[in-house]
């Protein structure tokens, strides 16, 4: 061991002197201890956060290479999707648009064919043509997967202008809607134009409804229709044409003695209607041509009823029909003769419209009142034909057979409602369409 150097001795002496000068050992003051403990707490918190970050960094370090591959793959997929998806979507939309147009064309052909076979009257709902010419899949809009909205139910095809909308796609695309017109054209109609076309229809319908209501208001319930001046005797076909009512509503159709509204309740069995609160069950009130449908929530839809065999009735009367006011016996004969003709066609078209209270949306309900096969056909047929014969026969109903006819008419209407089912379509707020297949509730 080397001897201690002088400088070392001096340094040790310096240290010894300073230790002696220091006196008692230093003690940590409580205030300083608190400061140090606060710093400890801060560091512990920061360390905890760092550890979380470190864990992430560790994971990143461990899986860096796979992560890079995955990220590259995701980026490639993203770029591919960004490039190809718009093109695919465009193609898909284009194909769907073409498919929708094709389906509407098929519907147009089918409805025209139906009208051709049914005195030019279009089907009340698309359901009536599905079994014959069009499959159910064709009634669905490929864009939305919903049924096409059909608004031509019960209209007479030859009375429609070419630009009247018969059916349209519920999908409101940027370029417009695919629309089927009365002349069989299928076009994509821009939104504004479509609104014009559909508003026109609504206005016409509203006017028709107003007309019916006005007539109902003006007509006292107890007032028999016989009070209305009977039309002049029809000598020729021209006379008959002149006497033909202009609209779908004819006061002549009001049965003599229809002193009170007939009403009957129906229940809708169509599956598609179960999801909406519209027309699941409803009450039908009929007063001559005027018809009101009272929905379960109290919403009332007003409209009119007309026979779908109107063309047959508008034909010139047979040669043996009396030229002047016919006696009751002759009228009965005419009625029987006409009844024989009408036994094959027993449909009555109706259309009602109004605001649904629950949805706060307009509802247009059109369809056919179909006589049930189980119903007593002779009574039903005879009575309704009796009503029509009053018109066709030139007002011959004003004779002494009125009392019998009134009672029979009432019975017939009640019988019609109680033994009929209602098949049709309800369009809610233009776009939503539900099928109606309602049966009377006993």
């Amino acid at each position, binding site marked *: 061991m080397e001897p201690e*150097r*002088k*400088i*070392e001795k*001096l*340094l*040790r002496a*310096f*240290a010894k*002197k*300073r*230790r002696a*000068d*220091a*006196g008692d*050992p*230093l*003690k*940590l*003051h409580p205030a*300083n*201890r608190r*400061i*140090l*403990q606060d*710093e*400890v*707490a801060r*560091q*512990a918190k920061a*360390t*905890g956060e760092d550890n979380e970050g470190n864990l992430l960094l560790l994971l990143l370090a461990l899986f860096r290479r796979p992560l890079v591959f995955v990220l590259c793959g995701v980026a490639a997929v993203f770029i591919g999707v960004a490039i190809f998806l718009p093109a695919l979507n465009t193609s898909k939309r284009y194909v769907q648009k073409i498919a929708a147009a094709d389906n509407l064309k098929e519907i147009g052909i089918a409805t025209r064919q139906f009208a051709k076979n049914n005195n030019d009257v279009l089907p009340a709902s698309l359901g009536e043509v599905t079994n014959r010419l069009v499959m159910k899949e064709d009634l669905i809009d490929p864009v939305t997967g919903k049924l096409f909205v059909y608004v031509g139910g019960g209209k007479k095809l030859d009375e429609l202008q070419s630009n009247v909308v018969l059916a349209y796609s519920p999908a409101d695309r940027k370029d417009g809607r695919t629309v089927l017109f009365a002349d069989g054209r299928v076009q994509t109609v821009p939104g504004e134009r479509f609104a014009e076309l559909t508003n026109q229809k609504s206005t016409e319908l509203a006017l028709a409804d107003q007309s019916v209501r006005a007539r109902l208001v003006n007509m006292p319930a107890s007032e028999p229709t016989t009070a209305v001046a009977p039309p002049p005797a029809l000598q020729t076909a021209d006379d008959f044409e002149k006497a033909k009512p202009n609209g779908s509503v004819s006061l002549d159709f009001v049965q003599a003695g229809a002193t009170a509204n007939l009403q009957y309740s129906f229940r809708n069995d169509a599956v598609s209607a179960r999801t909406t609160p519209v027309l699941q069950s409803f009450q039908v009130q009929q007063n001559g041509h005027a018809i009101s449908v009272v929905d379960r929530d109290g919403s009332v839809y007003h409209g009119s009823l007309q026979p779908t065999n109107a063309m047959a009735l508008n034909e010139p009367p047979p040669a043996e029909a009396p030229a002047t006011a016919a006696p009751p016996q002759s009228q009965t004969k005419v009625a029987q003769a006409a009844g024989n003709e009408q036994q094959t066609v027993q449909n009555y078209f109706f259309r009602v419209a109004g605001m649904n209270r629950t949805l706060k949306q307009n509802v247009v309900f059109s369809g056919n009142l179909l006589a049930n096969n189980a119903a007593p056909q002779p009574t039903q047929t005879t009575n309704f034909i009796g009503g029509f014969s009053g018109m066709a026969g030139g007002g011959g109903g004003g004779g002494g057979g009125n009392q019998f006819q009134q009672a029979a008419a009432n019975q017939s209407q009640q019988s019609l409602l109680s033994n009929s089912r209602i098949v049709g379509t309800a369009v809610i707020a233009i776009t939503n369409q539900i099928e109606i297949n309602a049966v009377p509730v006993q």
Partner: protein
Amino acid sequence: MGAMIPAEESDLITRCRRGEANAWDDLFDLHYAAAGRFIFQLASDFTREDAEEICQEVFLSVIKNLNAFHGESRFQTWLFRIAANQARDYREKRTAAKRGGIQTPVSLQAEDPATGLAPDPPAGTPGPDELLMNAEQMAGVRAALDRVGEPCREIIELRYFGDLSYEELSATLKLNPKTVSSRLSKCLDRLEEIMRGKAQSFPV
């Protein structure tokens, strides 16, 4: 105080790293006095208050940098190294202040409104104690240490004021023990030379 077997010290450090307040209290109690004494030795002009202030800074630094302690030496050795550096910084700061760097000007004409007396600022000249021979020697040693340069100052302070062995110095300074011995010898030679230069006025 201070004499901990490595296992206990390691456990204590581990608990401190987990942020246990009790462990830190134990650590302060174990090392605060030793650190204060070590700091007090580092300069002849350090007061107890200076030592406490430096000690506070040392332990704040320990709290912040405990993760940098890897157990290659005893904790106290690592602590002393930090203390030596903090003490040097403190002295440099104070020297700069004395040179006017951060001195606050005091007007000699200004009077205390409460007492009506003029302030009596401390004189920059040495006090009566420092005029004594021992005090001059001590100041000479300190001045020589300040001039000897960083590597030598550190190793000399740790060796003679911290009482670290060669092995501990080797571990702390991450030097070969033989290198520690030769470096210490050279540093002492240099310190002697500086002191001899001073010896013209202050005989060693």
